């Protein structure tokens, strides 16, 4: 798990009312996610500039990125977030483990890490 990080956009946005803990019953689609300091993963539909509104109030997070769900399977999960820019592959693996604990099937090769210096991305799992 990573050291908590505050959003780079420190404006205290209100938490989006659609923000919810990731769990069973999530529909197919693209989502952004933020893991709060207690380890819970919250999601919102992938729309413009939503990462700071997942937790709201410029709250720190221990990981953030985006993911794609298709028929209860995780097609991909990444560390992609301009707002948080987590750069630790182990934190992403920890998110993937938590997704599995939550009952999601993670496709082979779905855990994809993008180094924030722009160097080539890699598949972690």
């Amino acid at each position: 798990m990573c050291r908590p990080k505050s959003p780079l956009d420190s404006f205290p946005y209100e938490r989006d009312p659609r923000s919810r803990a990731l769990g069973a019953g999530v529909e197919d689609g693209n989502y952004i996610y933020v893991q709060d300091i207690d380890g819970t993963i919250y999601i919102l539909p992938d729309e413009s500039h939503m990462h700071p509104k997942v937790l709201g109030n410029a709250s720190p997070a221990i990981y953030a990125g985006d993911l794609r769900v298709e028929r209860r399977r995780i097609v991909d999960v990444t560390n992609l977030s301009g707002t948080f820019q987590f750069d630790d592959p182990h934190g992403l693996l920890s998110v993937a483990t938590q997704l599995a604990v939550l009952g999601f099937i993670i496709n082979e090769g779905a855990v994809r890490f993008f180094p924030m210096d722009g160097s080539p991305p890699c598949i972690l799992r």
Partner: protein
Amino acid sequence: MRALILEDNRDRRVAMIGRLAERFPFLHVTFFDASKKMIEFMESDKLQDIAMISLDHDLELISGSQGDWIDAGTGLDVARWLSKRPKPICPVVVHTTNSRAGGKMMRLLERSNWVAHRVIPHDDLLWIDTDWFRVTRNAIVDFAPQRRSPPILQVENKVSLIRSLLEDRYDSGQAFCKAAIAIILDAYVRDLRPLSGDVSAEVISFVNKDVLASVLDFEGPVVRWWREVGFSLRSLDTWAERGPLAPEQLGVGEEAAERLSRSGVKQIQIRVIEIAEMQALLVVSATRSLAPTAVQEIITELKKAIEIAVFVGLHWLPSGKQSKLTQKKKRKGLT
């Protein structure tokens, strides 16, 4: 990583780059307003780190310096050039309202084995935020990564790295330990403060079975309180490795617990640091909760960092001996 986009409309460009930067802050985006310029660029570039190409079809005429108008070409010109390359290099998104030309571009690219996606603009710029970004994001995430292990530095390598960096600066392992622990505590306490309020952390070593001493030259609120109330040395031991404890959970009686609370301490946590024959205690106290997962992760990391520092200190070589060894290695060409 780079993206190349054929798009001459300023508003579209602003919307595209804004949306990409939110998710791919490291992506370098180059826009072109004419097919000829884009083809010339691609001919002169190795195109090794291109993650995505997006192509409009209809482009506005460009005003020349002589008051003339220059034909900017079309996205079809670029699709034709791409299709003639020996092999595809990245996914391509075709974003044009011209359905006939868009279809032509798609067929040309697909016939030459390019992974091509079609996005039809609608509702002014709304399609960029929704359809175009979703297709582009999925295309980059599907295509870009290669399978390899994450870079992990082994603990042994970390230790030798620390040693190589610091060995010359300290005469003894003890001096190194003291300096390293002070730096580590300071750094981690700063990380903990936003989460747990006013945090104090110290490392206590046992001088013998009845006497303990702070490794550094200060005492935190817990140890000060512990000395004031005069508890036995064993009490600190019994609170170790039990997670965050509130004063009333220490089993020290109402008055002593109240006294600790009055000093502002809401929770304490004691972790045992054990390396070889040495045992010490890491004492963390906070004016807010130490319970959240993230706080626990930081405390665990803090404990590991101190253990590494102690490990390095225990395996310290006197500087004279170290430099002789280094010289010997240099002579043998080992360094």
